[in-house]
């Protein structure tokens, strides 16, 4: 019976027809309204969803909670949203490159939760894997542990940290297909695949959008089941924070 069902109803189409393509960043983020919680992929400025950030700045949504490893620099990335005072709360692990961020934090305009980078990553993973919480030794005995449950396993203390609960995850991939399958390039992968798994709604912008069938199933990093909207990004700046080189001499 299974064989009959499969070949009769699905096999006949021969192709996955689910199509998650939207026109552009403005359309992709159209239902992001004030007060929402967003996850934004990237490490520093590497692999950030440039197109969606520009659209969020243009749209001017406010009171956002942003979960991202870093907060951009003053004039790029999430820094642009900070300039527009669009962010109410920032959840990040390292924010050292952003003077406006530091100013808003010290003046009390911006609420900030600094958390260990591995905790940030694993709370994304937990959300994408359907697990409510994780246990990590990171932060035990420090101010990060304040108010958190500590459990001892095999003689070592661990903090219980909850899976993230984000309304939207916004990620940037190198290639994607119309069904939302994603491939990342080099270290711009970073938080992108795990955030893609963690959003209630996941938006992916890609450098190259292709038809289904063009990506090798063995090479896909993020299965399209996690991705709700995908679009072909444009005008990527890909700024470099620390340009370090050696001479050929």
């Amino acid at each position, binding site marked *: 019976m299974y064989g009959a069902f499969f070949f009769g109803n699905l096999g006949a189409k021969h192709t996955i027809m689910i199509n998650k393509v939207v026109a552009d960043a403005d359309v992709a983020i159209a239902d992001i309204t004030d007060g929402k919680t967003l996850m934004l992929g990237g*490490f520093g400025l590497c692999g950030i969803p440039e197109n969606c950030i520009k659209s969020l700045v243009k749209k001017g949504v406010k009171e956002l909670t942003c979960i991202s490893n870093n907060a951009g620099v003053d004039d790029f990335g999430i820094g642009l949203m900070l300039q527009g005072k669009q962010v109410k709360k920032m959840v990040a692990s390292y924010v050292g490159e952003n003077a406006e961020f530091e100013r808003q934090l*010290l003046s009390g305009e911006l609420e900030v939760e600094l958390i260990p980078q591995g905790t940030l990553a694993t709370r994304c993973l937990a959300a994408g894997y359907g697990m409510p919480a994780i246990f990590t030794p*990171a932060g035990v005995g420090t101010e990060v542990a304040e108010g958190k449950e500590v459990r001892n396993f095999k003689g070592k203390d661990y903090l219980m940290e909850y899976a993230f609960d984000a309304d939207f995850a916004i990620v940037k991939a190198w290639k994607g297909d119309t069904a939302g399958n994603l491939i990342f390039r080099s270290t711009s992968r970073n938080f992108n695949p795990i955030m893609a798994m963690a959003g209630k709604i996941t938006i992916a912008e890609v450098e190259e959008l292709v038809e289904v069938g063009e990506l090798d199933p063995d090479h896909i990093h993020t299965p399209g089941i996690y991705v709700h909207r995908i679009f072909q990004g444009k005008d990527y700046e890909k700024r470099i924070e620390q340009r370090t080189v050696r001479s050929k001499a």
Partner: protein
Amino acid sequence: MALSKEGIAQRIAKEIKDGYYVNLGIGIPTLVANYIPSGINVVLQSENGLLGMGPFPYEGEEDADLINAGKQTITTLPGSVIFDSAMSFGMIRAQKIDLTILGAMEVSENGDIANWKIPGKMVKGMGGAMDLVASAKNIIVAMQHVNKAGESKLLPECSLPLTGVKCIKKIVTELAVLEVLPEGGFKLVERAPGVSVDFIRNATAGKLYADDNVPEMVID
């Protein structure tokens, strides 16, 4: 004579063994890569998602998609591998990294470390430091013995917010190599060339234990 930053890095490089997977923090630890002895094969981890970090790219060959945890443009090597941030900290938490080298603002005599925050002054965040110190089985702290104000950074107790508790076992400064004793206190293991035990004692606010003949560091 007190060591330069390069000298500290050079001394730490002698702790690296063939086949090690090593995570280098920002600052002096990064310099260690320049002094890995020839004939020793190590794999450098960058916690943004790379094993097998190569040297800086040649001018004109920078790739914005390929950076290290310090956001510097780098290269890969034959055999390098890229992964996501969760796997990166997974291998850290699972103690697959053989040696972690990181900087510190303060270390206490029971092995506590503070290196991420100066209340009211510096708000940068801990990045991956809390994960690294909580899980690494083998951590070396690379730092100056005293701060810019001339105050010891090796203390009875840390005054700054902690990064990790009872996790540091070895420290290399411009003056000395020290071990944190299980019962508390710093044991002087090596002196920088020409630096006396008394000089080191004066620069160490925490308890310092020194044998009669503390050898000088040998730096090739």
